[in-house]
């Protein structure tokens, strides 16, 4: 729906018109089906506390997946989202714990670190013409190493900043509506989702994000400064990773420097289940959000039912393939 508007406004490519709606419906039905099945299978599943645990488990992966969505819509890929998240968390730890600065500086540091790293990735890809897979693979390793270097390979704890854990674990909603203690981390996920949906649907940056993924050459030939927009998308995705860094550090009350590698794959899985095409030009934040929820509902539900861990992994893999296959079936029909 939103992309339909975008396409109409951009007036560039008709093939992206009306894309996400059907897939969102499919992903959403999948999510509902999972919820129903798990609720029937275990009385412990549909409890407020457990639903909150699921949402909380989604918050970090959801935010990372939103960052990945931005880049994937341009036809690129970002393998550095996980370790960038960690690096942002470590920088926040340095600012708050080592330097002892007030909380807002820590938050700003995470966002700026993310943006700077995204800018570097974007620059490497747009200006130096290094393929996105390689450029972000390099960044993934650089950031992983830097996290260990900067932190001295030890977790940095936030014990001197008492308010810090409230970013993820506090509950503004719970203060207003007692009995609904939705953690702030979940709220932040939704805020990020709404903001990025707005950027994609209503701004020039959003229009160019889709246009780049659909036909970069055509955009270039119509006189647009493609490189500039591409760098902007990566920088925006980077600052979204900064938000994820704050969320995870706040949740663990520490910046864990060895964390992060592997998280990019979960993020990409959420994006793909949510119907965003890896070849670019098509995708929605709402779809990604549903994709991330499907992953956490599945993990949580299978655990509640005491399914052996090795089988949990197998089931998750099947769901990813099924979700994408269903999408292919749909497009063949169009």
């Amino acid at each position: 729906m939103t992309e339909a508007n975008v396409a109409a406004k951009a007036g560039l490519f008709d093939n992206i018109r009306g894309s996400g709606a059907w897939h969102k419906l499919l992903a959403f039905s999948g999510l509902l089906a999972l919820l129903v099945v798990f609720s029937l299978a275990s009385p412990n599943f549909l409890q407020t506390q457990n639903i909150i645990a699921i949402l909380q488990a989604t918050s970090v992966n959801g935010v990372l997946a939103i960052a990945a969505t931005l880049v994937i819509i341009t036809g690129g890929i970002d393998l550095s989202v996980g370790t960038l998240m960690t690096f942002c968390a470590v920088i926040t730890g340095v600012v708050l714990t080592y330097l002892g600065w007030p909380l807002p500086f820590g938050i700003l540091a995470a966002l700026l670190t993310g943006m700077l790293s995204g800018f570097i990735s974007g620059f490497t890809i747009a200006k130096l013409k290094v393929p996105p897979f390689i450029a972000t693979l390099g960044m993934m390793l650089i950031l992983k190493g830097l996290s260990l270097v900067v932190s001295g390979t030890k977790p940095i704890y936030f014990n001197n900043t008492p308010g810090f854990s409230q970013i993820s674990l506090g509950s503004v909603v719970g203060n207003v509506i007692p009995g609904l203690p939705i953690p702030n981390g979940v709220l932040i996920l939704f805020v990020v989702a709404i903001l990025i949906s707005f950027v994609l649907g209503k701004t020039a940056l959003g229009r160019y994000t889709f246009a780049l993924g659909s036909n970069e050459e055509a955009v270039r030939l119509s006189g647009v400064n493609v490189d500039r927009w591409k760098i902007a998308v990566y920088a925006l995705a980077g600052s979204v990773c900064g938000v994820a860094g704050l969320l995870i550090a706040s949740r663990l009350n520490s910046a864990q420097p060895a964390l992060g590698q592997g998280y990019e794959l979960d993020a990409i899985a959420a994006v793909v289940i949510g119907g965003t095409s890896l070849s670019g030009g098509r995708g929605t934040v709402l779809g990604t959000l549903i994709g991330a929820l499907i992953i956490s509902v599945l993990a949580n539900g299978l655990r509640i039912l005491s399914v052996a861990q090795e089988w949990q992994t197998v089931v998750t893999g099947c769901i990813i393939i099924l979700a994408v296959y269903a999408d292919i079936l749909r497009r063949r029909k169009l």
Partner: protein
Amino acid sequence: MFSRRTLIGATAALALLATTGAASAQEYDIALISKGFQHQFWQAVKAGADKAAAEFNAKVTFEGPDTEAQVDRQMDMLSAALARKPSAIGFAALDSQAATPLLQQAKDAGIPVIAFDSGVDSDIPLTTATTDNVAAAALAADKMAELIGGAGKVAVVAHDQTSRTGIDRVNGFVDRIKANYPNIEVVSVQYGGGDQLASTEITKSILLANPDLKGIFGANEGSALGVVNGKKELNSNVVVIGYDSGAAQKAAIMDGTMAGAITQNPVGIGYETVKAAIAALKGETLPKVIDTGFFYYDKTNMDAPEIAAVLYD
């Protein structure tokens, strides 16, 4: 359209049906959240837990993150386990601080918590089933002294300088040498992250720097295998003592490249954890720490029943 839309749900439903059918009515439901899962060591812990489960007619689940860095994943596993409302929880914390709110939740819900392996910095767990790593590494030092004739230079290749096991094993070894063997000098303690290849390179540099080195202690499985590789690549005669087991380490002991190794009792860790949980549920009081034991093994006693039972491939 309908069939395609419900494809995902249907598959999940099938998977669930298959598993829920298997869950029968056992008296106790115990959830173990470990630090790892697919590693042989953790699988041996799981085997011990399963053994106790069969013995005491309990249902035991065992989960752990892919790597020991994934603290948040471990939290998700712990919350899901809590939501299941188990009778007891066994927990090996990757980061004690991060787990505190959830452990408090368990305590408030009246679910007893048993710590295992490395323990939890908190007074919530009723007991900790673990190896005394300091004493185990000291035993390695004694064996090393015996093998090199009580004099000469030795070195340590360890996995890391921050984790409890890393610190305890290095200190246990080095302190025992200093205290009891004045003629032995520890010339180098280096860290290879438990990575075989990194530990190989470290070993080679130690050997090249100290041609008269008598022995090296590899403080975990990856480190020990690295030491063996380094020794082989340089055709050195240095005495190697390892830690834990695994097929490669056992083979090195059989062919003589490694003199012997310390083994923890991972099977015992799993077994004692479940046993302690059930004792707690029955209202019995538990000791603060349950020492799950360790052994030194070499070519001569590898096949002895009490050793073979705790070694893993």
